[in-house]
């Protein structure tokens, strides 16, 4: 249905716009030999009221035939429709003119003269074509507005993604704990202290670097995760055990940066660190069909305090996935047999390979 029919105010305005047209037609009819004004109006009002609704029908062909998809085709279609509308108006006018109430008498008896019929046909066609033009104009305005809105939304989403990346880069708790581990090791195990320093520096350089660069290779993300775990190893000692299940072939694939890292952080914070005897963190990167699967397995916390939970980090990852890949990516989590599994699936590989080349 035409949108104007659902909006009373718009419909009223539209019908009011037809009043001058009614006056114009009545005047033309007077010139074409109509006996007086009342009869001219009595003829013009019902005829044009019907035409007002016929012209709204232009909405359907205008929607079906956007000008962008071929002007000649649309033009021919609209001219044919306009001719039909002109004919319908003429036929309607002829029927009206024969009504005894109007008492229209020509030399040929009741009905329209050929010049009057020609006038009605021309008016019907022209009004219809005018309506087509107006519909195209309104559609153009609406699509421009829509495009503007979409551009704004895209910008907001991109900003959001940038912000989430920034937030993922800096985790003060990790930083201070690591510095404390280094301070502790400096006395008794200076060599270990040095290696933790090097890994921490590499980790910070890596995470601070990814911000402005867009997507990066999976191998770099895994390297960051390993450095992170190495630093945490110094703090947690034997409580942290690390395993890897990595398909070497995915190293060259690209991915939005710092997606895997929050999962590794959660695995430590809500898993290993919550258990007296710690547990195993398993890094996973492999291909499944066309998709790339990245994930982390970690031990479930003991019956310990479930404060906060991993919800915030996961929500951030989901938002970023949506911003970067729309429906082409997902994050799922499951807890079973004492293991918490988190998986990110980045859909069809060629799509993100393209993205990588764009950068």
């Amino acid at each position: 249905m035409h949108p104007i029919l659902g909006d009373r105010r718009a419909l009223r305005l539209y019908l009011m716009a037809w009043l001058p047209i009614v006056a114009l037609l009545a005047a033309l009819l007077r010139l074409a030999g109509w006996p007086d004004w009342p009869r001219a109006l009595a003829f013009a009002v019902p005829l044009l009221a019907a035409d007002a609704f016929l012209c709204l029908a232009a909405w359907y062909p205008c929607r079906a035939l956007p000008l962008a998809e071929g002007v000649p085709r649309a033009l021919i279609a609209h001219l044919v429709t306009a001719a039909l509308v002109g004919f319908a108006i003429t036929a309607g006018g002829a029927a009206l003119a024969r009504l005894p109430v109007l008492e229209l008498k020509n030399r040929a008896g009741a009905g329209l003269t050929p010049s009057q019929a020609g006038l009605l046909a021309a008016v019907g066609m022209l009004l219809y074509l005018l309506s087509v033009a107006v519909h195209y104009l309104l559609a153009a305005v609406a699509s421009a507005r829509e495009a503007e809105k979409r551009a704004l939304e895209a910008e907001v989403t991109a900003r959001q993604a940038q912000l989430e990346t920034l937030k993922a880069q800096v985790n003060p708790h990790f930083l201070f704990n690591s510095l404390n581990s280094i301070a502790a090791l400096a006395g008794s195990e200076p060599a270990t202290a040095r290696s933790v320093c090097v890994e921490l520096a590499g980790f910070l350089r890596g995470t601070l670097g990814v911000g402005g660069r867009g997507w990066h290779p999976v191998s770099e993300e895994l390297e960051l995760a390993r450095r992170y775990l190495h630093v945490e190893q110094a703090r947690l000692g034997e409580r942290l055990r690390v395993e890897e299940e990595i398909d070497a072939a995915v190293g060259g694939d690209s991915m939005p940066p710092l997606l895997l890292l929050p999962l590794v952080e959660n695995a430590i914070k809500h898993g290993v660190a919550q258990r007296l005897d710690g547990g195993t963190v398993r890094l996973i990167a492999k291909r499944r069909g066309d998709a790339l699967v990245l994930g982390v397995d970690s031990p479930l916390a003991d019956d310990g305090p479930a404060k906060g939970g991993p919800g915030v980090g996961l929500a951030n990852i989901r938002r970023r996935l949506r911003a970067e890949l729309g429906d082409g990516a997902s994050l799922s989590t499951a807890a079973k047999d004492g293991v918490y599994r988190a998986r990110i699936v980045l859909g069809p590989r060629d799509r993100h390979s393209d993205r990588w080349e764009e950068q």
Partner: protein
Amino acid sequence: MSTQADPTPLEVIIVDDEEPARRLLREYLNELGSVRIVAECANGFEAVRAVQEHDPDVLLLDIQMPKLDGFEVLELIEREVAVVFVTAFDEHALRAFEVHAVDYLLKPFSAERLAQALEHAQARVAEGSPPAPQELADAARPDCGPLERLLVRDGAEVHVIPTRDVDYIEADDDAVVIHTSGRRHRKLQRLAELEGRLDPERFVRVHRSYLLNVDRLRKLELYAKDSRLAILADGTHIPVSRAGYARLRERM
């Protein structure tokens, strides 16, 4: 430094789940002299046990630990001890510390800063006025919603009771008795104070001395003018006062 002039060494317990953190504290404390480390604990359970056993002057207490966190350890200690919190970064806890003028060390810290904190703690011990551990825990703990579990110490053993398992809680002088499916756990805590930390949707003060888990309520019986009895799912009878009845009706 005054600690070095002190003839009797300060007895200290270190509580931190991270080995390097304990090592650093140990090194710093050994350099200070006049301090004796009586125990090192890697988790909250050990800490509760060690405090009962050694009755130390000062507790150097990490906050984030598995199973029992630092605040929960304090809740279970019923002895006078000066507490110094040791933590890496926790905005909420820091704000609480500032507000309540609690001693704390931010990791990583210097040996001088540790000495300062110990001196301060020692002064409080000398004055005989370290705040009671439970009060300290309540004051410094960031507000993180109603309790989901209750902690009860039985000698050196710690019981963890999920609040959904509690039938009702009864006041007993300055302690409470927690009833869970036929078992009773006594804990030094005021009923009103505990009531304030439990989920008000689940626990209703039906009587001056009773806090009832409304999920357990089967029916109410009129007992005398203005007083009723709550009959629980397991048949237990609990008195309900007039005010308690009003609170129950409001809740139902």
